[in-house]
């Protein structure tokens, strides 16, 4: 239930982020016992690189606290869609915060908005939509993969978000977003291999007073076909973009400063020369600097946005 609103203490059943380091964190369910493969109920012990955590012990603890592991410690954080996305086992290709932030902004999602999403996938993006539109809006999310739809539905329930989301198992390219949604959506988001096939359905789902559209596609040809379809149906403000986030790795660098002036003078024959050189060489300067990691995300996907203007007749 820890996704609904900010809360201070861990309650039984909360999903909790066990934060070990920037590159190591886990989402765990705060339940004292779990059922093992043999069907036995056993105490919930979570294993990390820094030893084990008896999960029962974190119930009632304040979020943000430090908790002891058998071989170290970690912090317990309340999950946010950002942290959840980072801890997600990669069930499908997921979209990350920089693209998602742009999607929410461009789709103008705010409390009260009615958003249609396809596909649901891992539900990572759904969590962002839900944060932005609750408590007065509604998310309708579609996936053609039945197990995935079921899994997402169950997850939203456990996260306390059921009131604001409807999960559909449906092939939207062929069947559309159901007649019930005709003219109901403020925004439609597509992450499909053939977005152009779903554009006419998005057109139907958007309100008569107009709305916003987004399609996320890894390949440029998908965007090209999507834009052709959007243009045909009278969408405007069509723009395509990429957002790439760069992380800065911050470090202090120490550089030797070498002295070359002394070379202009003949050496004296005594020992001092060597010590003079090595002394000169030992001078250093420190710089607080940063650089990109060696490998950066070079491409996530093309984001295509469009507006359905108000009062376009829908045949």
């Amino acid at each position: 239930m820890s996704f609904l609103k900010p809360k201070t203490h861990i309650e039984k059943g909360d999903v909790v982020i066990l934060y070990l380091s920037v590159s190591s964190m886990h989402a765990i369910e705060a339940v004292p016992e779990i059922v093992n493969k043999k069907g036995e109920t056993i105490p919930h012990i979570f294993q990390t690189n820094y030893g084990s955590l008896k999960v029962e012990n974190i119930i009632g603890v304040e979020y943000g606290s430090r908790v002891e592991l058998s071989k170290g410690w970690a912090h317990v954080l309340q999950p946010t869609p950002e942290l959840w996305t980072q801890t997600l086992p990669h069930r499908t290709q997921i979209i990350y915060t920089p693209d998602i932030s742009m999607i929410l902004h461009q789709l103008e999602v705010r409390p009260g908005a009615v958003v249609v999403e396809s596909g649901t996938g891992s539900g990572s993006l759904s969590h962002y939509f839900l944060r932005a539109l609750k408590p007065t809006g509604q998310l309708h999310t579609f996936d053609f993969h039945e197990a995935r739809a079921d899994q997402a539905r169950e997850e939203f329930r456990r996260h306390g978000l059921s009131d604001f989301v409807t999960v559909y198992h449906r092939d939207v390219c062929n069947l559309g977003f159901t007649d019930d949604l005709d003219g109901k959506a403020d925004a439609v988001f597509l992450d499909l291999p053939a977005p152009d096939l779903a554009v006419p359905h998005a057109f139907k789902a958007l309100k008569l007073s107009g709305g916003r559209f987004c399609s996320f596609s890894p390949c440029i040809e998908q965007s090209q076909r999507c834009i052709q379809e959007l243009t045909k149906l009278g969408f405007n403000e069509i723009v395509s973009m990429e957002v790439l986030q760069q992380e800065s790795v911050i470090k202090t660098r120490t550089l030797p400063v070498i002295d070359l002036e002394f070379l202009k003078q003949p050496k004296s024959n005594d020992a001092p020369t060597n010590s003079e050189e090595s002394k000169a060489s030992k001078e250093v300067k420190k710089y607080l600097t940063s650089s990109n990691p060696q490998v950066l995300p070079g491409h996530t996907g093309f984001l295509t946005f469009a507006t359905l203007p108000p009062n376009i007749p829908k045949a």
Partner: protein
Amino acid sequence: MSTPSIQLGDYIVIQRQKYTKLQKFGSLDTTATLGKETLELKSLLDQPYGSTFKMCVKETKPGKRGAQRQHALELCSETELRSTRELLGISSSGADNRDICDDGEAQALKPSDIEQLREECNGSSKIIEKLVENSKTFHARTEYSQEKYLRKKEKKYFEFVQIRQPTIRLMVDIFYRQDAEKIMGIRVDTLSQIISYSGVCGFGSYLLYESGTNGLLPAAMLNSIGAGTEGTLVHMHPGNVPQKQALLALKLPLEQQQRCVSVNLYSVLREFYQGGESKESDVPPTEPSEVETQEAQPETPTEEQPESIEPSTKKPKLDDNQNGSKGPLRWQLENKKAAALMHAKFDSLVLAAKEHPTNILEALLPLVKPSRPVVVFGTCKELLQETYMELKATGKVTGLHLTSNWLRTYQILPNRTHPEVNMSGNSGYLLTGYTLK
């Protein structure tokens, strides 16, 4: 839900092709300036947002840089908006541009001819038709080159404007394009990420310090807090009165507006630390002079509104005092409201300071609950590197990341797909993390 209509007092977005502008529709006499064109706005009243209007020349005055034209606006239908290209029915085009000698004399019409045409023809398509007729090279150009030519001319002579309701999305584009410095260089991608990383939504209490973004940051956060929700925002600023243009332009319901408490940083911190001593009706005699002092400080940014957009700069100040001099002043009440929220602590902190952030962070971080996001925006990387090291050293914030963004828009057209030739160079930097207990 029917489309809202344009009302007096509204901020409106005027769009002419890709150009957009934020304008206050203060009275029936209000005019808007688009380049050399002046538009009378009175016919907008009560028309639905999203409508398109035709610019009809009423008068041409000689101006400093060419003629200045005054236009009335006439509501027009969608059918009038067919593409200029179709109207002209251009067909013949060369296969490539090998036969074109660009000797600067391709256009037979002289500038004075064109100016005259402009007054005679009411309609860009007619002007462009004449230009094409008189161009020696147009029909020898490639189709691509013809389109480029037409687009250029269309842009210059296009006579339709659309009136739209301001949203955060439209405003950040306008502000960033017009003068990015006035919104501290916060680009659209960065703004969208401030909203994500801060976690601002319909639940919770949020703290923002910003030293001047035309109201964009508080507006974006309050927009995400939403109407009819329980979220609240304390908006701290260093000036005398807060910059609120974007906030006012959103025309939010009053109950929502009231959940944004805008307070002066110094003044509210004094209230927070010492508020217990000076009780509600007990107006501290030194406060007004303090506000004056701050106004006189050259280092702290002031609330100057861009004159071109909001001529009545001082209006919010008058509003502030409208309660009269009997009870506590409005800013005092706001300070008390904010101090109460500060004592209850916040669900995240967003900082966008023109000043050095260290001391501000030191003062505001203790007001944030544990396990909550902190987002510091800045345009100077070196400064945020330093802040990163300082925060890391305190151990009070974890999951620290310093990031920036690349944003590229694409031209996607049949056989002419490529990233746009120009891109914006600076997204600014975000330092993000989570508070610890």
